[in-house]
């Protein structure tokens, strides 16, 4: 017997998470968006298990403290819906710093994400960082300290993340150091920008927490924008 689809549309919503919303954790963001959908009266499809809940799939969780211009969440609608109007309704139900960009029919799967572009702003770079950033990024080996599990213990391991940096561009603006870079991203291999930041500031006096990180765009294997 063919499977009966219980929903009318599968859609993807892209949204920005900026400003103070960077301090909302991934799980809290999920709850926040679920509630916004409820307030907006979205005909969202619920799971049918023992504990029915709105079925939402976020492509990649965003680290606490990062801003993003390219978050996505997939969900199903139980009836045909005007997507432009839907986007507006959800947007109105969201807090100010989370903004819906578009709701559309997806052309790729979250698993297709392979790269992500970040803008990393060092607000107070010291001289050492300004002098060494370029050469570290250009060298054949970029060692980052990664926390990994070894059995039950958590240990710090040095890994070479060079092959996970697809490109980079450094600029100085108003005494700030701005790094635009494309890093490995996605379900199979994900490089948190904090790893790269750690590698860059390791031998400097620059505070690794005085850095703004903005996720700009997600890409597929051949650098097409994830849609």
């Amino acid at each position, binding site marked *: 017997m063919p499977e009966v689809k219980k929903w009318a549309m599968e859609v993807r919503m892209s949204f920005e998470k900026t400003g*103070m919303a960077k*301090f909302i954790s991934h799980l809290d963001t999920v709850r*926040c968006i679920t509630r916004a959908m409820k*307030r907006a009266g979205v005909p969202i499809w619920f799971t049918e298990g023992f504990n029915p809940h709105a079925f939402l799939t976020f492509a990649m969780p965003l680290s606490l403290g990062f801003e993003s211009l390219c978050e996505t969440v997939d969900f199903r609608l139980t009836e045909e819906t005007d997507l432009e109007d839907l986007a507006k309704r959800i947007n109105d*139900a969201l*807090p100010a*710093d989370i903004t819906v960009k578009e709701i559309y029919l997806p052309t790729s799967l979250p698993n297709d994400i392979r790269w992500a572009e970040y803008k990393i702003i060092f607000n107070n770079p010291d001289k050492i960082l300004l002098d060494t950033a370029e050469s570290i990024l250009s060298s054949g080996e970029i060692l980052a300290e990664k926390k990994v599990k070894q059995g039950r213990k958590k240990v710090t391991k040095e890994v070479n993340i060079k092959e996970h940096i697809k490109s980079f561009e450094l600029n100085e603006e108003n005494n700030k150091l701005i790094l635009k870079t494309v890093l490995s991203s996605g379900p199979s291999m994900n490089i948190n920008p904090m790893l790269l930041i750690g590698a860059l500031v390791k031998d400097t006096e620059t505070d690794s927490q*005085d850095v703004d990180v903005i996720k700009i765009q997600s890409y597929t294997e051949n650098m097409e924008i994830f849609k």
Partner: protein
Amino acid sequence: MVKKEVEKLLKKVQKPARYTGGELNSVVKDKNDVKLRYAFCFPDNYEIGMSHLGMKILYSLVNERPDAWCERTFAPWEDMEALMRENGVKLYALESGDALDEFDLIGFTLQYELSYTNVLNMLDLGGVPVLKKDRTSLTPMVIAGGPCVCNPEPMADFIDIFLPGEGEEVTNELIDLLIEHKEKGSTRLEFLREAAKIQGVYVPEFYNVDYNEDGTIKSVENLETAPEKVKKRIISDLDSAHYPKNFVVPFIDVVQDRTVGEVFRGCIRGCRFCQAGFIYRPIREKSPEKINEQCRSISDATGYDEISLCSLSTSDYTKIEKLIPMLFDWALKESINVSLPSLRVDNFSDELMEELKKVRRSGLTFAPEAGTQRLRDAINKNVTEEEVLRTALKAFDGGWTSVKLYFMMGLPTETLDDIKGIADLAQKVVDAFYNNPNREKGKGVQVSVSCASFVPKPFTPFQWEPQDTGDMLIEKQKHLLSSTKSRKISISYHQSDTSVLEGVLARGDRRLGDVIYKAWQKGCKFDSWDEFFDFSKWREAFDECGLTTEFYANRRREFDEILPWDHMDYGIRKEFLVEENKKAHRSETTPHCRIKCSACGANKLNGGKCDAGSKKMGNGSQNVL
């Protein structure tokens, strides 16, 4: 809006969303458009404070006024506090990001005694002098409300105005008055003189307290415009009282994160240990239509998927059989769960039982409070063992497999036999499960016994009673553990030192102001949190002030002693409390207010009206669990 220098700190703290503001439904106004700015402070962390219904009510009440702006402030967690102090950042309100010292009115809610040091700490962090005597200008005016205000004396050194009773009306009157005096350019004293004339306003500096040599109170003299007794405020008609149309929806998980429908205020039960049961009298109910409408509005505006009903002893609501189907009618369609706390299942019709099964069920909780019938009679907890077991059985039939039992230890007249009775009752619940042929097969039963330490509180029949010492409580805890035989029963109890401090602060006098101040200076804060509570620092503070905890906690007071809170009028007659105390010692019960009015006196606050008198009991008066 959080300021730039704060944003930097937020990257270094746990749960930064505690400090950002910007939540859905939070109210942002232009400070130039309002005449008065009010910082509502909850002296505990964000997660606790954001769960508090009173704050939500007053926040929306004040913000409904175009001429005032109410913002929220919570006690920062220690990581954030350290960074703030290190970087010279003052405690700010979440909506504007402005420091407390920029506000006209700073209001604290005193929900529990162990939050007192946080009040001092928050004022200090906000750039406001902690001691009232160091604040000489008209603003900021520091006010406080909440249940602890029924004995505000220990906090008298720090608070300008206390507001005993319900805040809805008096808050607006006080705001009107403060705006008027700001515009007139009045002094602090001029304002306080006028404020003291409002019913439900207590200005502690207008009362002079003298002590006897033994430390008891000799006299309390009212000065200036202050009345001899301060009568608490109540809202006469809850249907027309202000209730929020929406709640601020936190980003992070907070303790109570759901729609709350308040169903009534007051309580008919008269349990002699329970302060709330007396200080919120008389009982006043809201209509089911109103509750339903309010729940609907808040659920729509928040997106919450859960509704809970709020009151003391919710199942005493006379129209619950009407309210539940009204709520279920729309809530279930929208996948909204309705949770009903502290319900008497045996009081429900089978139909309602079926309705309740539709929603995800929470655990089943009983509060027998004491282990033997004799002691239950003494504390006037009119529950019989048979009723507990009958209700448990009905619940087991309905598929419940876990039961929570709440008890207290250290109750007046309690003996070790009463403690053993706790274990015996828990065992009987376990046996009831296994003897029930209809129980859910393949499942065991879990009985969780939770034992709080009894703390005598003002305005209860036990306000004169000595509190058990820590050693006595520890002995009783040991006895309970050794009396418990089944592994289906788990026992948990409360740390006894915190109860001692709670008891001291609850029945303390003004001299404790010095102790609280010293304890805070020694670093005491978040005293209700085990990881912060440091009794040794408190002991030092008591020693340095020449006071003892025993004087306040463990001493039996005579009925004719002047109590520190005697000049507060909560409607309840002192003679009634004396009579109830004597009956407790004779293990005599008092029927609840719907069976027979005991003339407690609280109805005089409401022009003689009391919702207990005019209502008929739904299902007969025997089901009183």
